């Protein structure tokens, strides 16, 4: 219906139109928000929740790093230290990073990208959010009741014999697992059945492929986490004899159960981050994605192979050598699809017209940091090397590079990318990019130090250490302050943009070709007028972007 024009690719800053009725302003009572089934509102509520937990757990990390400035006790005794790192891990994993991209950005963007009016099961979506809140309350209760010091991995026999609200925390994890399962079910069904006419599987944006692969993992892996939590609680309460060696059980079996979920879980964490990068790079290189099918299939391959490798967390656990060897071999397989993605992203950028605004800065940070994180994972995947590096700071640095340097950086980049769509308001580009640099520098200072001390033997989860490691700890702590400052600044820049009165961002400030940009910013409650039809590929920069068509809105034809 719209003719290709040249005007709509320009941002509309300076020609701010009057506010229109949209998903934020229509039916704006508290009750409406609390009972909403609108995926966009739920996405925002999730965003607020996960970011709150991110900053809480981040503050805990800053406390940890502060204590580690000296090998002696500074302000935390060792028992408290154990609780603080457990909570940092548990909150970050279960309350922040697992839900983050799928539930916050995925919820908002997925139906828009597919040209749908909502996800497949909107009421299930609302249920998922309330289940998340319930799990969060249970976890907070466990913290208030004295906290848990088992490490976020809850290994037996310690977790089944120690005092404290471990059972409550385990049940909180069980509940949070269901929130994740509901989201996964919703997204798989949505991608199968709610695509716009003309949008086959290979016309999907790569963000959808990544979220879809993630949702498959969420559905298949999370129930095992649930049963693991149940079994741990049963062992604690009733001594059923499955994980306790004195009763004829096997403590290593707990680790099999735990990591069967938790290794695919790390792919739940990274695949959506990669999915965001697959959106940002073509848009900011003004070039079609190189190797679309390779990236699409690599997402699904990572999801599949990710189920085969969990024992690489258990090389030193007492697991048999045969099992370790099988796991190590398969671990090297899973690195291949990730590598394929990196090469394809780079090839996409090559000879593109690079737009260096903030989302692209985060994407490029991702490429560097995820490459480092992924490559160091290869060291850990070799049994003979892992014997020395297991449970050292090398591991800590590795997973922070992939989870934080990877997923969190991509998440923040994605928030910046879709911010104008979500709110219709543009943030201050200059300050946002400065914040990105601060985050990048702070992150590297924090965690490069940890690679170095880890490879020299500094163990993880230790409250004290030998004097030769102190210089690394000091460096890492200073880095944490820079990193924290950068993150707070990034959040501040984004939130400050909301104080504007007018929608100045325009419908498609980046000139992207995916369907969510074909509606106004912020979108109307029902996303589109009528049913949009696919007109061009998601990264087809030979055509002009399709303008938003909202009758009675700011645009016509």
């Amino acid at each position, binding site marked *: 219906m719209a003719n290709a024009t040249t005007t709509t690719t320009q941002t509309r800053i300076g020609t701010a139109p009057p506010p229109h009725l949209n998903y934020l302003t229509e039916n704006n009572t508290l009750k409406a928000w609390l009972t909403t089934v609108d995926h966009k509102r739920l996405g925002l509520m999730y965003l607020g929740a996960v970011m709150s937990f991110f900053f809480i757990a981040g503050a805990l990390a800053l406390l940890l790093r502060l204590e580690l400035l000296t090998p002696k006790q500074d302000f935390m005794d060792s028992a408290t230290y154990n609780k603080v790192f457990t909570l940092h891990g548990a909150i970050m994993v279960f309350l922040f990073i697992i839900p983050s991209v799928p539930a916050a950005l995925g919820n908002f963007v997925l139906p828009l990208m597919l040209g749908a009016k909502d996800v497949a099961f909107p009421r299930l979506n609302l249920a998922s959010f309330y289940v998340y809140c319930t799990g969060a309350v249970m976890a907070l209760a466990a913290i208030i009741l004295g906290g848990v010091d088992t490490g976020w991995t809850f290994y037996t026999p310690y977790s089944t014999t120690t005092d404290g609200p471990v059972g409550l925390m385990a049940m909180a994890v069980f509940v949070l697992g269901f929130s994740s399962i509901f989201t996964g079910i919703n997204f798989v069904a949505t991608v*199968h059945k709610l695509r716009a006419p003309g949008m086959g599987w290979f016309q999907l944006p790569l963000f959808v492929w990544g979220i879809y692969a993630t949702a498959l993992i969420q559905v*298949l892996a999370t129930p*095992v986490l649930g049963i693991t939590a149940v079994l741990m609680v049963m062992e604690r309460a009733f*001594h059923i*004899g499955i994980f306790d*060696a*004195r*009763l*004829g*059980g*096997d403590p*290593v*079996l707990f680790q*099999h159960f735990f990591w*069967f979920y938790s290794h695919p879980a790390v792919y739940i964490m990274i695949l959506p981050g990669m999915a965001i990068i697959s959106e940002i790079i073509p848009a900011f290189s003004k070039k079609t994605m190189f190797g679309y099918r390779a990236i699409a299939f690599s997402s699904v391959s990572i999801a599949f192979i990710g*189920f*085969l490798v*969990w*024992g690489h967390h258990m090389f030193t656990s*007492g*697991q*048999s*050598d*045969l*099992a370790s060897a*099988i*796991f190590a071999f398969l671990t090297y397989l899973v690195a291949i699809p990730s590598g394929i993605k990196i090469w394809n992203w780079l090839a996409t950028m090559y000879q593109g017209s690079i737009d260096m605004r903030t989302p692209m800065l985060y994407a490029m940070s991702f490429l560097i940091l995820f490459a480092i994180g992924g490559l160091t994972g290869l060291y850990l995947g070799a049994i003979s090397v892992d014997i020395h590096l297991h449970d050292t700071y090398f591991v800590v640095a590795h997973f922070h590079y992939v989870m934080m340097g990877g997923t969190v950086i991509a998440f923040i980049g994605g928030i910046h990318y879709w911010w104008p769509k979500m709110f219709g308001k543009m943030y201050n580009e200059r300050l946002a990019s400065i914040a990105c640099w601060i985050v990048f520098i702070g992150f590297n200072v924090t965690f490069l130090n940890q690679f170095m001390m880890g490879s020299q033997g500094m163990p993880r989860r230790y409250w004290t250490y030998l004097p030769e490691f102190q210089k690394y700890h000091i460096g890492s702590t200073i880095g944490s302050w820079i990193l924290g400052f950068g993150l707070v600044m990034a959040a501040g820049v984004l939130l400050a943009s909301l104080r504007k009165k007018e929608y100045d961002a325009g419908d498609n400030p980046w000139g992207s070709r995916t369907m969510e940009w074909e509606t106004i910013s912020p979108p109307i409650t029902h996303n589109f007028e009528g049913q949009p039809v696919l007109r061009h590929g998601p990264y087809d920069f030979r055509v002009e972007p399709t303008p938003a068509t909202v009758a009675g809105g700011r645009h016509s034809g």
Partner: protein
Amino acid sequence: MSQHTHDSHSSPSGHHLHGGPKVYATVLAILLALTLITIGASKVDFGSPSANVVIALIIATIKATIVALWFMHLKYDKPINGMIFASTLFFLALFFAYPYIDANSRTDVKPSNWKGPAYMPDSGSAVRGIGANFPVRPLPPPPGSKPAEHGAEKH
């Protein structure tokens, strides 16, 4: 308004209805028969103890397949539903296989200072389960305390 010729009905899918009382009753009869066979087979000694387990599981799988194909309509549905179910079973098999391989190959390669597993499978002595003379090697004493006569099991 039920008809005997169900082909004339349309469902939301626009497809002809599949199944029907005759088909389902036949399926039920087969399932009941297989149940009787399962019970009968469990009474027969097939030689090795694991043979009974395997046979019981095979018959159970046949019953499960029948339920899935006819009662759960997988035979008539689009393939996606069956693919979801099949892949679930695949990952479940994976989940079992790895720890099984692990548990059964723990003692394949013994270091020279190997002292044996931390637990002993039950050796048939008729004692109570918890807290009693369970034939397990005593736990080492906690560091800093005097070594006890028997590793004290406290519950």
